[in-house]
């Protein structure tokens, strides 16, 4: 595993992302509120550029038929192509337990963001 510079912390504002090239592999680095995440940019479903998708939440059912709850807001990345959803923190697909996106460690050091790939 090697550490790769993403850029200075102050250049990645909360709510933003940066998609970088790491030795030919595209990696998306996200800063959502106070947390950082890094995921592969290749959606395991159909190869879409996952890290250009929206940050969203998802729905779960409540007690009654039409009771819907909106949960995990800000924790889910939705692929820009077919809207597949993945947890930013784990890369796990929301809908398909067999699907997972590779995730990477993000390290902050001396005012810089690094990703370990």
């Amino acid at each position, binding site marked *: 595993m090697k550490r790769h510079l993403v850029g200075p912390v102050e250049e990645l504002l909360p709510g933003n992302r940066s998609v970088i090239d790491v030795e030919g592999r595209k990696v998306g680095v996200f800063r959502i509120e106070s947390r950082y995440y890094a995921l592969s940019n290749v959606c395991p479903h*159909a*190869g*879409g*550029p996952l890290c*250009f*998708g*929206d940050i969203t939440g998802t729905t779960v059912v409540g007690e009654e038929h039409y009771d819907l709850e909106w949960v995990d807001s800000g924790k889910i990345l*939705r692929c*820009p*192509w*077919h*809207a597949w959803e993945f947890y930013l923190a784990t890369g796990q697909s929301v809908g398909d337990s067999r699907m997972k996106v590779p995730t990477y460690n993000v390290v902050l050091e001396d005012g810089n963001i690094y990703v370990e790939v």
Partner: protein
Amino acid sequence: MSGTQVLEQPAERQMIEVSIVDIDVHPSPRSPDELRSYVPDPWRTTNWSNEVFNAIGSPVYEAPNKAQRRDSYSPVGGPPCSDPVFSAKQLFGEAGVDYGILIPLTVRPTANPAHEAAVCAATNMWLKDTWLSKYNKHGRYYGALRVSSRDTDLAVREIEKWAGDEHFIEVMLNPYTDTPAGQSRYHPIYELVSRLGLPIVLHANRSPGMRLLSPVGFSSYFFEHHSLYSMMYADHLVSLVFEGVFEKFPNLKVTLVEGGFSWVVPLAWRMDKLWEEIGSEVPNVKRRPSEYIRDHVRLSTQPIEEPPNRRDLVDLWDLMDPGQLLMFATDYPHWDYDAPREIGRFPREARQRILRDNALDWYNLPSTRPDVPLA
């Protein structure tokens, strides 16, 4: 001018082999006003909302990702597939498409057929001025002519107006109608397009109101609506076959775009069985329904079907040959886009036919194109 200048002849353009034809691309005007400027009066000046141009967004069913590939918005602004430079980068560059057939979804069916026909006419003029000429220096775009499916006379007039145009290579009927596609109301249209050698294309084009109604009522969710596209296409297909349309118009070709495809096999089993056993209800039908489908109908591969066991998609096709019946489509820039790699799901020997040969034959397109730089 000083001295003698030798004018160089432009170098002969290198021709390259076409390998991917995409039969479903959806261009948009940069703004509703761009399209409105083409609408004939009184429809332009009267105060119609811009919603009449928006046949994708819907207050009834909302598609995921607002129906668009979220990475298809150009940095210069505007809706997806409104900037020819950015779209060419994604479609021709990243996806590797050679020809794109443009199906503009800029006509939301309206209550008044004349109004709908006016928006169709505007769409055709707009498409011809922009994507089929100004944006088409490379010659890689062709288009579907929009006509109203609700008034046959108006549709015929619009087709006649453009007859012989090199870029409009098929005629789109909105499949959200109140009359199945095989019935006699449409026959003057079929007579004309058969004579002109233009296929009819049916493409989902969400309409508000009663036409969203399924036979069992209104669905709650977009997923229901989307899953049921196939049913709407099936309704039209059985009508075309059992009304004997392909006997009456032996040159008629019908392209079904964005309705899925695997459904056609079990449907054809059922149709063949009925026809073989008790065909007397439909004496106009002289051949097995599956034979008409094979000879007169093509389906787009998009949205590709994704059974968990990939083999199932192939095993289904014992009655029909997917390499004969299917044509590749991306549906760019929409959310349920398929990249060409999805065709890897089909047997090797069918792939080139699906990606290229079938569409070249169906639309009579040149198999090589000039190697013109995109920018």
